[in-house]
Structure formats: structure tokens, C-alpha cells
């Protein structure tokens, strides 16, 4: 494939990533992937009650991995935890106007990191480590 097979949206998110960097007020962090395999992502969330009020990422990986990270953080801002838990790779992929077949596996990383962050957040809340209530769950 050529990178020109990437959609304009993928290229846009790759060249102008949204929400890049560590989040100062993050209270949920997810890390997936392995640099040896060429993909690794840290995802930072700021959760208030049931809602993700802010999100950011740091990604080591290819164009698709970075664009997915960026797009995902955009999508989850303002989203309820329950909705975020249901966010699928496919949704991110579609929001990016698709990915070249070779690169679809890259989109799993962003969803996985998101779910990982939410899971660890919930575990911490459940164990009482986190202040604030987790009303609906």
C-alpha cells in the first residue's frame, strides 16, 4: 500500500493530532501495546462522575495508530463512561473514513487503551482509592 491510501481524515489527525500529550488532571490512564511490536499508547482521561470531561494520548506507532489515538480522544470527550465502554474499533475507523485493510489492526489499539483506562479507573474507584462517587454504575 501507499500512505496515500490513507483517508484525508487519517492524514489530518496524524499531522495535526488533537489532545496530544499528558493530561494534567488525568484520573484514568490506560497503556497498551509494546514498542517492540511497533505500537504503544498511553491514554489519559479526566473523569467527572459518569462523564469523560477530557482525554489525551501519547502514542508510539504508525500513522494509523496516531490518527486513531487522536480521533478517539476527540470522540470520547463529553461521553459517558458507559458509552465509552461500548466504543468499538469500528466506530473510530469509521470516524476516520476507513483505514487501508493492512492497517485495521492498528485501530484496535486506541479502543483497547480506552477500555483499559476505564477499567482501571473503575477498579480504583471500587477499591475506594478514588474520591468522588460513581453514581450510575
Amino acid at each position: 500500500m501507499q500512505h496515500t491510501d490513507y483517508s484525508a481524515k487519517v492524514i489530518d489527525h496524524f499531522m495535526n493530532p488533537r489532545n496530544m500529550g499528558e493530561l494534567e488532571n488525568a484520573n484514568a490512564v490506560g497503556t497498551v501495546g509494546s514498542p517492540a511490536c511497533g505500537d504503544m499508547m498511553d491514554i489519559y482521561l479526566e473523569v467527572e462522575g459518569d462523564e469523560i470531561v477530557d482525554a489525551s494520548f501519547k502514542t508510539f506507532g504508525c500513522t494509523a495508530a496516531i490518527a486513531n489515538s487522536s480521533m478517539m480522544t476527540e470522540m470520547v470527550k463529553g461521553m459517558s463512561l458507559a458509552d465509552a465502554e461500548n466504543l468499538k474499533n469500528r466506530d473510530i475507523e469509521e470516524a476516520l473514513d476507513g483505514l487501508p485493510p493492512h492497517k485495521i489492526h492498528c485501530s484496535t489499539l486506541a479502543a483497547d487503551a480506552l477500555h483499559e483506562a476505564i477499567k482501571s479507573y473503575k477498579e480504583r474507584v471500587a477499591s475506594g482509592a478514588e474520591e468522588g462517587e460513581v453514581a450510575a454504575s
Partner: protein
Amino acid sequence: MAMTQTTAAPRRIYMDHAATARPLPEVVEAMVPYLSEEYGSPQSFHTQGSGPAHALKQAREQVGALIHAPATQITFTSGGIEANNLAVKGAALAAQRRGKHIVTTEVEHYAVHHSVKFLEKLGFETTFVGVDGYGRVDPQAVADAVRDDTVLVSVQLANQEVGTLQPVAEVARLVKAINKRIVVHADGTYAVGQIPVDVDALGVDLLSLTAHRFYGPKGAGALYARKGVRLTPLIHGGVQENGKRAGTENVPAIVGLGVAAERAAAEMEARMARVSGLRDRLERGLVERIENVQVNGHPTERLPGYLDISIEGIEGEGTLVRLDLDGIAVASGSACASMALKGSQVLHAIGVDEVLAQGSILITLGIDNTDADIDDALEEIPRVVETLRKMSPIYGKRKHYFR
């Protein structure tokens, strides 16, 4: 979904000559008549066959001259990969009554590697000799791997990925001292046309080459086969190429190969000086401007245009894409930048850390590159690296991966 960036980029700088190179204008010019008026088959008995037949003859001499071989010992193929397949399978199958053992290296191109793997299915055994940290094979280690039933030794002239030159002459000398009948093949697809090559000085029996690496066209390559070396054809079915390779000859491409060979021979010294000068400046500049990088391959025994660098904390595919969007075309040993989604076996064999290997960029310069290209690259590459390192969750945070 497709999107073309070409128009967006102001100026394209091509630094991926390992993939392929732009044919010289005189190459294209020489080819075109054989696509039109001189379209006849060189095997035809009539007048229309005459021009093409003479053109083939001339190309055979031009290619022979480039590697100091008689024209009669040149077999044209559709490219370097076919030449390597013909060399390895052809020599092994023709010699199989004498033995079924092959010696080769861990850093050969897939053309050789997979040919050997295919032969293993037919009952051959292989010894893969490893390389040092520069990607260089030890000739004595190759000789030590030779057995009584060894029929073929295949060692590349230069590595496709880090550009390291292999001590092929020494390999051939040691192997022939053990057993003269062992066929010694050198994959010259990355070296021929870039550095001086002399089949007698090397002492090899077979040498593969391909046109599109030295400013010839795609679709033409050649195998040099020393007189008396037996080969089972890969492509059966006709008298062409002395029965070694059937199929109507791709006259236009072969004519282009001939012209490219002639130009390469004539300009060899000048090209080498120019290209390695540019490469050295780029290498020094990048190492100065980017911290935590490692240059792969041999410091001096390397193809003139080659610069393979591993950049800590970033991944190669993304780097490649950003550079391309800035107008600079390079390659990468990263798994994500390969169609097979596999990391570089060469970097692995050399012992480059796995994470570092993911951040490898292969820059290969050619005769069409200029000083201005180097200036631009020295500006863009560090900038892209900086941007990507800022996004990286591992850069600066984790251990260094250098040896």
C-alpha cells in the same frame, strides 16, 4: 479513500534508491524504438528480427563489460529476483547428484532466502551463517560451514538494508580451496552498478544483477554464469538465452539495461564520489542534530548511497509518512512500513534492539540527489523526529536501546 499528496508537496526529494531508481533519460530514449518500429522478435529469421537481435547482442556486451565478463556468459532475466532464483535453484538442482547442502548467510534478501527454503522442501539442507554487528559475514565462518555434500555457497555482495559490503572474494577463495566444484554465487543486485565489480577478481561462478538499481528500467536483470557452470532453467520452453531462460526477450528493457550498464561503468568513480560525499554529509549532520540515534551497517565498507539510522523513541512508518508529506521519500525497516508487517530480519541479525529497529529509517541517495536535497533533509528530518518524539510515550522515559 485514496488521497494524493503530490500536488500539495512543493518539491519531491527522492531518497529511496534502494527501492528503485529513475531511469536515465538516455536509457528511456534508447528503449522507445524497441517499443515501436523495432518491435520484432530477436528469434525471428526475417529482417524485423534483425535490429532487436543486434540490440540484444550489444546489451550483452555492455552488461558483460560492467562486471568484466564475456558477453557470452550473460543470461538476461526479468530482474534481479529472477536472476537470484535462477542462480540458487538452478545451480542447486543441476548439482544435486553431488550433494544437497547449501551455505548462505542470515542477511540475504528474500530472493535468495526463499529460494533456499524452497529447495529445503526438495530435500536440501542449509547452513545460515550469521553476521557481526556491522552486518558483515566472516569468510572463515562460511568456509567452516562447508561440508562434503555442499554444492552451493551464496553470499551477497552488499546488504540490501544496511548497505554493508561482504567479503565475497575472500569467501570464494576459501570455499574454492576446500572444493573447486562448489558453485559460488553472489547476489549483486544492490551492488552492481554502484561499486566496481569484477567477476574474476571476486572469483565467483554466478553473479546476479538488476537494471533498475542503477538507473535502468524495471523488467530486466541478468545472471552472469561462468563457463561450465551448470544450471537447471527456472523458466523452460525455448531456445532463448541459450536455453537457460525461455520467453520472448524483453528487448526494450534489455536495451535499457545495456545503456544503464554502459553509463554506470563510464561514470562509476564520479558517481561514487558524489553520492558518498552527499551521504557522508547527511550522516554527519543527522548525528549532530538528532540525539540518541544509531547508524547501522559498516562505517566504511558500505554502499555509497546508504544511510540506515535507528532513531530512539519513534516509529518508522509514521516518520516515513511525515517526511513524505514534507516531500522527502525514504524507506523504513519498521514492521508497519512493510507489506508483510514484519520487522527487519537484517537488523535483528545484526543485533539491533527490537524497539530501536522499529524506529529505523533507510535513506538511500542516488546520482539525482543534490546538495540542496541534503540541506532540506537536514532540516526536515530532525524536525519530524522532534515532533514525533513529543508524541511518544516511551522517548526519554525508558531505557536506552543502544548496544
